């Protein structure tokens, strides 16, 4: 059984349709790419999965349970974590405190009432180390480079120990070497048993890391398959050329 099923989801903004009967499924323990031109509905899709955007119609099924009406925070507790395309780091806090907040929230009421920091410092350092931004630990999150902030969001999401991790353009802002290291990290996470869905523009990264790829255009899935299959799909080429008329 797939971990996540996006089932015939429609999202309309006023007169514009952002998601048009989108459907796809994700297997546990895989890295899946979600690609498509700007405005194809990728971020909207993430918002619907995490519960930030109620769909006009359709269902989100996680692990066999319909979570369409479940509020954001409960989905998080069910194991959905994410990063954002437009950064949502807590700018007023330091990088370390960003992760600390995530740990506190994850621990729930117990975490909020806990008086001593205890082992949290170690855990934070480990998480920052893992994504490679430990040197920024004491800087305010709104003053670090974009790439660092993205990795911070990843560390923060990991603090909640998610089963399903949604990454929205995680590599933008990273240089070539960093991107490479990031690709390695992703595979590591997958081997740990985490499932990853990633929106990404860096095709090299997508093609090298993903097990499976969905192509979204005008809010609908127009193609899918392994990286090799997708690369050779004529529809995908059209969509990326922006030849809208032909694509439809």
């Amino acid at each position, binding site marked *: 059984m797939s971990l996540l099923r996006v089932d015939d989801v429609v999202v309309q903004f*006023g*007169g514009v349709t952002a998601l048009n009967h989108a459907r796809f499924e994700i297997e546990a323990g895989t890295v899946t790419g979600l690609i498509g031109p700007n405005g194809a509905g990728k971020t909207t899709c993430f918002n619907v999965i995490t519960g930030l955007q109620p769909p006009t119609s359709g269902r989100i099924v996680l692990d066999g349970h319909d979570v369409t009406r479940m509020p954001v925070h409960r989905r998080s507790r069910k194991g959905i974590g994410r990063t954002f395309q437009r950064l949502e780091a807590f700018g007023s806090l330091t990088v*370390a405190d960003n992760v600390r907040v995530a740990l506190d929230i994850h621990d729930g009421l117990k975490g909020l009432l806990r008086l001593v920091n205890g082992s949290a*410092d170690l855990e934070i350092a480990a998480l920052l180390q893992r994504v490679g931004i*430990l040197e920024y630990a004491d800087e305010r999150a709104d003053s670090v480079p974009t790439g660092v902030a993205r990795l911070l969001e990843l560390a923060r999401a990991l*603090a909640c120990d998610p089963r399903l991790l949604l990454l929205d353009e995680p590599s933008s802002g990273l240089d070539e070497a960093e991107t490479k290291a990031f690709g390695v990290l992703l595979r590591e996470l997958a081997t740990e048993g985490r499932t990853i869905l990633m929106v990404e523009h860096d095709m090299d990264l997508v093609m090298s890391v993903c097990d499976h790829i969905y192509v979204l255009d005008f809010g609908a899935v127009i193609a899918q398959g392994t990286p090799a299959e997708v690369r050779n799909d004529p529809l995908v080429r059209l969509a990326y050329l922006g030849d809208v008329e032909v694509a439809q």
Partner: protein
Amino acid sequence: MDAFISYTLIGIFTGAAYAIAASGLVLTYSTTRVFNIAHGAVGMVFAFVYWDFSQRQGMPEWLALIVVLILVAPAAGVFMQRVLVRDLGNAPVGVSLVVTVGILVGLIGLATQVWKPAGRSAPPFFGQHLIKLGDNVVITWHQVITVILSGVVAGLLYLLLAKTRVGTAMRASVDNPDLLKLYGGRPQLVASLAWAVGTSLAALAGILLTPVIGLQYYDLTLLVISAYSAAMLGKLTSLPMTYVGAMGLGILQSYAIGYLPSAGDIAGLRAVIPTLFLFAILILLPQAPLRIGQVKGLVSAPVPSLKKAASWAGGLLVFVALLTKGLSESDLLLVGTALTYAIVMLSLVLLTGFGGFVSLAQFTFAGVGAVAYSKLDQPDLLGVLLASLIAAAVGALVAIPVLRLTGLYLALATLAFAQLMDKLVFGASFAYKEGAPLTAKRMSVLGIEFNSTGSYVFLMALCFVVVALLVIAVRRGRVGRVLIAMRDSQAAVGTLGLDLRWVRVGLFAASAGIAGVAGALFAGLRGTTVAMDFIFFQSLVLLLMAVVWGVTSVTGALLGGAFLMYLPVAQSDHPSIAGLLFVLLGVGAVILGREPNGLANKLFQSSRWVIDKVTPQVAKRLPAGAHKEGVRDVAATR
């Protein structure tokens, strides 16, 4: 039957005026996501402008109408959009609320400054000619024209939105301006147009209502609450539903006067029908999605260590102690008032500064505290504590109905709540019955009396210090960190698993509790309090003052409290610029609204700058990297 028809016709007239005002509100909100609390104030100012043109300067009425509606109002609308509220749609809701409240207060100040209070009359269109329908049903031409104009407005808006390209763009930008940009729209142009039209509609509503309301600064401004309620039925985005809401509300109000009992306990109900309407809709609205958008770190006021804070607190207490020796009774009362306000502002530091939620009812919570304290007649710590708990419970009660909604709706709920309390509860027999004052005794602490004003003011300073230290302790702790995180990004804390709803209720309760303490202390200071002490408008001024001086720091609260106390004194000392002071405050809020750390933070920065200048050596040696090293070591050991 005649009576029924009459009530209906009057209701339709009222509804038509609401509809015009509300449609302007919807237009500006839906295109720019800025909810313009000042919409009514805009209408008020243009009613004055129209009066000035047509009555004072003698311009023909039709010409004055055209000049105002086609030229002046749209120009002002574009100015507001381009300069005052620019890009606020992407800012947190709290910021746009503060800025528009700033515009509201500024406009009231402007109107009182330019058009000094005096009797003015604006004749209705076509004078007092009456149209008789049957024996007993009479309407005026003015009413007919208002209804016709609302229809015309509806028609024109329909054509604009449904039949023009720019209209389609407007509708698309409702939910997703980015999407609009992708499809080749120009959001800035669309926004300007929306504000031009919206402002013109506010002006039209103001002008149409003036002959009925009179040229009143506050009445015209607050009328918009009815418009909010109507617009809410259309979730602030649907024009047809807004019209339905406006008409329904107008007729409901008219019937209420006609058929509800006019005296007795529930008589006050009639005055709050728009408010109840608003509450009902808020409760029925579906779950609102969390806001996603890039928000940079807002809170940058330094957080003092508890030790440092305690030494400052000691300094403050010594200072107040000196004041109590040196000042006269009347000046001490002012110091006490300033301390009251400062404590209320501390409640905003927690709620708005840390949590990012805006409340337009903090004085109302203080009023609850004052009433509870007076009624309990338990002038000691227990009495204050109970008063605070009651206020906290009321605060939670306000937040619960709007549990599922976002910050904007929460703020509007507080506004509705403040109105309800003003009209229905504070005047009730268990509070300020028939406007009569309530008396209260000054509290004693563990048997020690604080009867002289000097000693009581010192006690208030002590309370301020205790609450301030608590606020600082919260900020330094886990809860404070989570609050700041929530303020910076609600979407992110949501996806990390935080249930915002109950945090919000708790935060509201805590904040209302602090305000309740202030109210209880205030009642003791004054000996008598009246409902007027806690009216709704005060809460707006409080919010602005808090934002201007800095809503993220205790220092800001203290300074804000002092200036809030000084504002009416200054207005009384310099009556010729009384309005200007409001304008100044409004402008300050517009400028500083985006930077909630306020003037207090500027103060910190300048003092830090001095320190850096004076002792560069120390600054250099400050082991900024030391701690980081430590962390790295820790990591390495793992």
